[in-house]
């Protein structure tokens, strides 16, 4: 009898390594997962000269490390993972790596591998394993190549494992490094406010760029936060939260077939959070959003999608760019109004690796095996999104019904007349007329919708203005009057009562300080009230230079209080137009306020605002520039959107008013983010009647 056993050709290494795990980011992530499984607190990935073949990758952690036996019996054994997910590590982590195949893919990236490991608690010995893949090519079977594990004295102390992949077979592109950075940052749930106990660091400039983006966390700017949970009993609850976490709506997810029946999901217990942003072109209405649309879009492009975390470690490819595993984009295409897409949302699903309906990852790490439990989880998530869409649709319907009820009756009567007139037309053209009128109605409704939003914006503004004016009036009327009267009385009485000059000076000095402070205080109120004077809203001939002069005089004490000087450079002409003084003032007051706020925000040392004018044909061009830090918001066009502000207490309305007012006056406004003084430069083109 001849005894025999399976043996493996070295080619199997290429099959299992390169062909199962194709992408560099996925392969390196596997080594990082090994570090996580070894209870490391930190894992550093270093890339050296990788943009050309022959480079090197080093993955080092401060985990438990391995002794020679562990290296031989576990690390080098492929296909049999000792990592049962229900056996936790000493730190209570559920092992994330599996079967050792992911590791093989990473190790095969280089021509050679050097593994160094120092076991926790036995730091005097370092164990080293070298693998030279060329040696396998000449061998008949894998087992023919003997590998030596050497142990030497370790003088550096510490513990953990260091894996070097030397002489990389191919280069790694900048895009791949970015993808790697993204994978590493997303590996442990970066969305929660608490820092994970496992930090991954990639030493590469791309990493810093992606890291700074992920730190931004725009969750508070989301329009909706959906939170859903399915318990071990399979019952699912869903709720919609506002940005503070207050519940807007909640429900138990009912069966689609019988709506009153609560559906029981055979899914692993899961928590689902999705943050949804309304970023369409028709949503430029007022919102309290602090970040610009462009910034949020960039962030969502980098990290958007619904990510899955099993035992706190991300499972790819869910949430990768282009991965729409919940078919959100398809649903959105069917109903664009009330559905999020992968570009407008970010989310995470947290599940446990163990339990009754546990999900199992595929060997090639391309996600979970799509068994009944996975499909049930997917159904739960999709049902949650459906619930949100229904809720939004209901709200939108309610709003539309209200709008319809509010629509002027005269318009309805006119529409009836048009309908009746269409019926009188020959049947051949009736349909064309109906279609044309329907198109007209839609565009008119859209316009009306835009106007309604604008009105909402200006109502908010007006309320702010009225409140400021009331406050100014109150503070000016009595408290300031009392201070002024008292100071004036002191100024009169001190010289009479106090006999010696030095003593008088001692008393009159502080009185003078009180007067000066009161004048500054009064300026603020005066400015507010002056801007809201009714007479200024009349249409009349308004000179650009006199308006600027008045405004600068009004604001000068306020600006000086903020160490800011104005520089005027007016042309010799006297340009004027027919408008209201309030409109023209609002443009410049907002630009000046903007500059002052920029100085304060940046803590600028040189603070100057320059206002210059010139005539170009039948236009007057007013340039307002400052020595602040300039505008960094990208895209630049976002600065005009209502609600976009870089300041914690900003309203984000100032530049929207500038844009709208200039437009209403038939002019236009351009901006240079960094002008000649270092700060922003705004150029306003006014169509003048004469100069």
């Amino acid at each position, binding site marked *: 009898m001849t005894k025999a056993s399976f043996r493996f050709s070295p080619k199997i290494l290429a099959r299992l390594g390169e062909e199962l795990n194709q992408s560099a980011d996925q392969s390196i992530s596997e080594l990082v997962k090994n570090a996580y499984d070894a209870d490391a607190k930190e894992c550093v990935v270093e890339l050296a000269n990788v943009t050309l073949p022959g480079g090197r990758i080093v993955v080092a952690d401060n985990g438990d490390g391995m002794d020679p036996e562990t290296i031989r019996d576990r690390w080098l054994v492929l296909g049999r993972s000792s990592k049962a997910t229900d056996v936790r590590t000493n730190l209570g982590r559920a092992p994330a790596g599996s079967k050792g195949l992911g590791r093989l893919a990473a190790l095969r990236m280089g021509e050679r591998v050097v593994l160094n490991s120092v076991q926790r608690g036995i730091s005097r010995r370092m164990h080293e394993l070298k693998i030279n893949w060329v040696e396998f090519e000449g061998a008949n079977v894998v087992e023919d190549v003997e590998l030596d594990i050497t142990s030497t004295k370790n003088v550096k102390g510490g513990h953990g494992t260091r894996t070097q992949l030397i002489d990389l077979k191919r280069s790694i592109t900048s895009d791949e490094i970015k993808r790697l950075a993204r994978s590493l940052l997303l590996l442990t749930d970066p969305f929660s406010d608490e820092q994970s106990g496992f930090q991954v660091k990639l030493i590469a400039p791309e990493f810093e760029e992606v890291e700074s983006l992920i730190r931004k966390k725009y969750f508070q700017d989301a329009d909706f936060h959906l939170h859903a949970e399915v318990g071990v009993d399979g019952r699912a609850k869903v709720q919609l939260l506002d940005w503070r976490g207050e519940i807007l709506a909640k429900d138990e997810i009912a069966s689609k077939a019988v709506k009153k029946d609560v559906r029981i999901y055979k899914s692993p217990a899961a928590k689902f959070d999705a943050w949804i942003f309304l970023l369409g072109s028709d949503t430029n209405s007022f919102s309290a959003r602090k970040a610009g649309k462009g910034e949020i879009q960039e962030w969502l492009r980098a990290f958007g999608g619904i990510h899955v975390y099993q035992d706190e470690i991300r499972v790819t490819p869910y949430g990768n760019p282009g991965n729409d595993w919940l078919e959100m984009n398809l649903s959105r295409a069917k109903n664009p109004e009330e559905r999020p897409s992968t570009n407008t949302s970010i989310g995470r699903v947290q599940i446990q690796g163990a339990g009754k309906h546990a999900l199992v990852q595929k060997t090639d790490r391309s996600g979970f095996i799509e068994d009944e439990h996975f499909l049930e989880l997917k159904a739960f998530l999709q049902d949650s999104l459906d619930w949100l869409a229904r809720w939004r649709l209901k709200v939108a319907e309610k709003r539309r019904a209200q709008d319809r009820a509010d629509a002027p009756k005269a318009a309805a009567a006119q529409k009836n007349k048009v309908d009746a007139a269409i019926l009188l037309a020959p049947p051949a053209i009736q349909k064309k007329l109906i279609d044309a009128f329907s198109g007209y109605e839609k565009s008119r409704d859209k316009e009306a919708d835009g106007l309604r939003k604008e009105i909402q914006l200006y109502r908010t503004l007006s309320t702010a203005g009225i409140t400021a004016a009331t406050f100014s009036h109150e503070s*000016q*009327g*009595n408290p*300031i*009057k*009392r201070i*002024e*009267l*008292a*100071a*004036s*009385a002191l*100024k*009169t*009485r001190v010289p*009479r009562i106090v006999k010696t000059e030095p003593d008088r000076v001692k008393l009159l000095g502080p009185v003078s300080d009180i*007067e000066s402070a*009161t004048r500054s205080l*009064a300026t603020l109120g*005066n400015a507010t*009230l*002056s801007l809201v*004077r*009714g*007479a200024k809203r*009349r249409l*009349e001939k308004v000179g650009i230079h006199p308006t600027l002069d008045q405004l600068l005089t009004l604001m000068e004490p306020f600006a000086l209080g903020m160490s800011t000087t104005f520089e005027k450079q007016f042309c010799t002409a006297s340009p004027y137009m027919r408008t209201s003084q309030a409109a023209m003032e609002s443009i410049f007051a907002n630009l000046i306020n903007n500059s002052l706020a920029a100085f304060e925000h940046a803590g600028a040392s040189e603070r100057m605002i320059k206002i210059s004018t010139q005539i170009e044909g039948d236009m007057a061009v007013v340039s307002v520039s400052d020595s602040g830090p300039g505008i960094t918001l990208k895209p630049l066009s976002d600065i005009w959107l209502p609600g976009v502000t870089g300041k914690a207490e900003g309203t984000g309305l100032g530049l929207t008013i500038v844009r709208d007012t200039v437009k209403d006056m038939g002019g236009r406004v351009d901006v240079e983010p960094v002008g000649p003084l270092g700060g922003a430069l705004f150029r306003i083109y006014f169509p003048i009647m004469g100069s």
Partner: protein
Amino acid sequence: MAIMLDSRHRIDRVKLIDDDPEVRALYKYSVEDLELFPEEISGPIGDAGTLIETFDSAADAAICDYNLKSKNYANTDGSVVVSKLYSRNVPAVLCTRWAGHVSDQIRYWRRRIPVVLSPNELNPETLLSAFEVCAKEFGGGFSDFRRPWRAMVRVESAEDAGGGHIRLNLVIPSWKSSVGLSYVVPPQPGAVLQDICRRAMVGEVVRSFGQVNLGVESDEDVYIDDWTM
């Protein structure tokens, strides 16, 4: 003690009219420093007519705030009170922080409000000087910027200013031909002003005449009185 402003006008007592008791107490300082007797009008004072009845035109003067209606203190503005006191030869000064903001509202009364002081300007010297200006005007003596001249007033437009008030937008060519002024007409003005308001409200440009202090520099201090067609 009393102060003789001129051969006919004497002041013993200065009445202090303000809806804020603390402000009234502060007015006292200037009055006491002139060694006159301050008397706070604690209110409520109802309408201006009733209040005026309590004044002795031979010995009283007044310091009066503009905003008297915010605390149920009076049902009229300080401009009306000062103007009516002036008409009865009682020296009175309007003391307000709002001169610039309310110039349109008080222009109708301004012919009989010779001096408007802001609180930081109020001291014994300015107060005495203001009373002297009043006394002088009672006798027909005007400073250059207060002297009335007959002048043409072109009312360009009118609009409802709320509460029965009409705002006239006008130009006084012989003062400054390119400066527009506002003039708020209170309810129930004289027949001529009523007619002007009615015509301007329907879009007519109305050319009328009035007594105007053409020597004044600032538009805040312009008055128009004795309107005629």
